[in-house]
């Protein structure tokens, strides 16, 4: 009867100081969860009422005093689409070079370092570089195409890293088998390596889209402008004009005009896009694990 309780022997008894620490940890975790729910909830509650069919499908009309974000949706799609067209082959190619071709250790180190450096440069500096290089030096002016090129460099490290990880996961036996059967290197890459790392590449694409959709500082400088008019003219004509994406438009409504209702409407659209992209990443990862 006088035996000490089991918990004292196994050291499971908790000291008051430990209770405090446990309490603090659980409290912080709970606070974070509540914070996210509050922030997202607040945006949606204030923003969703603004979202109507005309809001999404028309341009702003100062005479009728209606607002619409269709032009900036189109600008966002243009920038994302064309940046991906350049960036995906470039990023995948770079990753293939690093993992399949490069033999010179110094070169590999330089490419890795460059890619890490690009990933660490903040978007406002991409904005300055893009302006000085693409808009002024290459004479592209402040335009969507300058935005496309700037964002291409910005998301290049994301594409390279995810593709590299996917290539690393392809078993060595695949490569040895193909080369042993007499396949050339390009044939091996084309028919085996790229198809088997397709899901990794897809993850890179989704992450890149997320980064581009939320980008504002760089685009404000290089693609700037506003999105007042419905899109017109050929694709090239539109690309060579300035135009703002959804994030930049949000900034304009909130800061230059103090129209918070519209800003929250755009914010809700962006939150929905970000949440969908997150779900998509998970879905791709889940399919990857199942395979």
């Amino acid at each position: 009867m006088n035996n000490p309780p089991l918990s004292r022997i196994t050291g499971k008894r908790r000291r008051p100081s430990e209770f405090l620490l446990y309490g603090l940890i659980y409290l912080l975790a709970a606070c974070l969860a509540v914070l996210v729910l509050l922030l997202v909830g607040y945006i949606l509650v204030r923003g969703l009422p603004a979202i109507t069919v005309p809001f999404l499908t028309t341009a702003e009309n100062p005479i009728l005093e209606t607002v619409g974000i269709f032009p900036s949706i189109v600008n966002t799609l243009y920038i994302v689409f064309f940046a991906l067209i350049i960036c995906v082959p470039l990023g995948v190619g770079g990753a293939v070079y690093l993992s399949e071709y490069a033999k010179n250790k110094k070169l590999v180190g330089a490419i890795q370092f460059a890619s890490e450096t690009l990933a660490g440069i903040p978007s406002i500096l991409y904005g300055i570089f893009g302006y000085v290089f693409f808009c002024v030096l290459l004479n592209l002016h402040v335009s969507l195409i300058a935005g496309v090129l700037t964002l291409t460099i910005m998301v290049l490290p994301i594409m390279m890293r995810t593709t590299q990880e996917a290539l690393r996961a392809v078993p060595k036996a695949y490569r040895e088998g193909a080369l042993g059967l007499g396949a050339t290197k390009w044939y091996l890459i084309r028919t085996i390596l790229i198809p088997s790392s397709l899901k990794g590449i897809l993850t890179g694409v989704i992450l890149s889209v997320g980064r581009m959709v939320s980008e504002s500082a760089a685009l404000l400088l290089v693609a700037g402008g506003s999105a007042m008019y419905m899109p017109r003219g050929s694709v090239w004509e539109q690309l060579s004009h300035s135009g703002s994406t959804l994030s930049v438009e949000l900034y304009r409504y909130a800061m230059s005009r103090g129209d918070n209702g519209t800003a929250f409407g755009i914010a809700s659209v962006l939150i929905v896009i970000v949440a969908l992209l997150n779900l998509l990443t998970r879905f791709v990862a889940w399919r990857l694990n199942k395979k």
Partner: protein
Amino acid sequence: MTKKTSVLSGKSAKPLVERAMNLIFLICGLASVISVVFMTVYMVASGGAIIAETGVLRFLLGRIWNPGSSEFGILPMILASLLATLCAVLVALPVGVLIAVFLAKLSPGKLAAGMRTFIDLLAGIPSVIYGLLGALLIVPMIFRLQKAAGLPNGGSLLAAILILVIMILPTIISVSETALRTVPKQYEEAALALGSTRLQCIFKVTIPAAKSGIVAGMVLGTGRAIGEAMAVMMVSGNAAIMPELLRPVRLLTAAIPIEWAYSSGLHRQALYGIGLVLFVFIMIINILLRQIMKKGGAHDE
């Protein structure tokens, strides 16, 4: 393996397609190197002009920023940026590590997965939305403090710090969590077997073993904080005066988008100069990060 193929096919007999593809992949690989070289060259070239004109010391240590009379001293902005970043990291680091401990060690798997969805969402929210929320929720919260101190209401350094804390938390949490998870199980088992409690084990064994990963997370968070432009610009009030916690401040990053539209000539060049100063800060952080990762990698082996 490669030797065998080269013996069979012969190096000189490599078909044209192969050689062309080799070259194309090389160019793709070099794209990032070329980008970094070009960025460095053009940042230095565009930002160097104003610094050469006003002198390094007068630009970096000047206290007065008045584009109208061509006075470009950015010391208040440098101090504001450093102060905001330092405070944000000091707050976010302990909070982030404790939440990472919760996710990696204390919470049941399903709860941790749910929390991670939240953290991913937090990481994905565009910075303009943080700016909007900050301007409407955080800035008014500080009004009472400002009133008590007898200062006018408005954006402040404190608001910028709070918004940065929220923005860098996801980075610190996810990097620290990964670091905590990769600590070998034997370390913890040994500590537990020797009679330490769960928390003693975490704080005396797991966290010290994951130190290099946690430091990497901190440096990454620092880089994010010092480079953030839009969100801090929307909450910090933007007065280029010496920083005080409850007064409006202007950060280096914020100065660029604010004045961009109406700047030209020397004024625009001064903004390029601010860009160059930021670029140098970021490069230092990048190199620091690389050293830490290298050291951490060597430690694991």
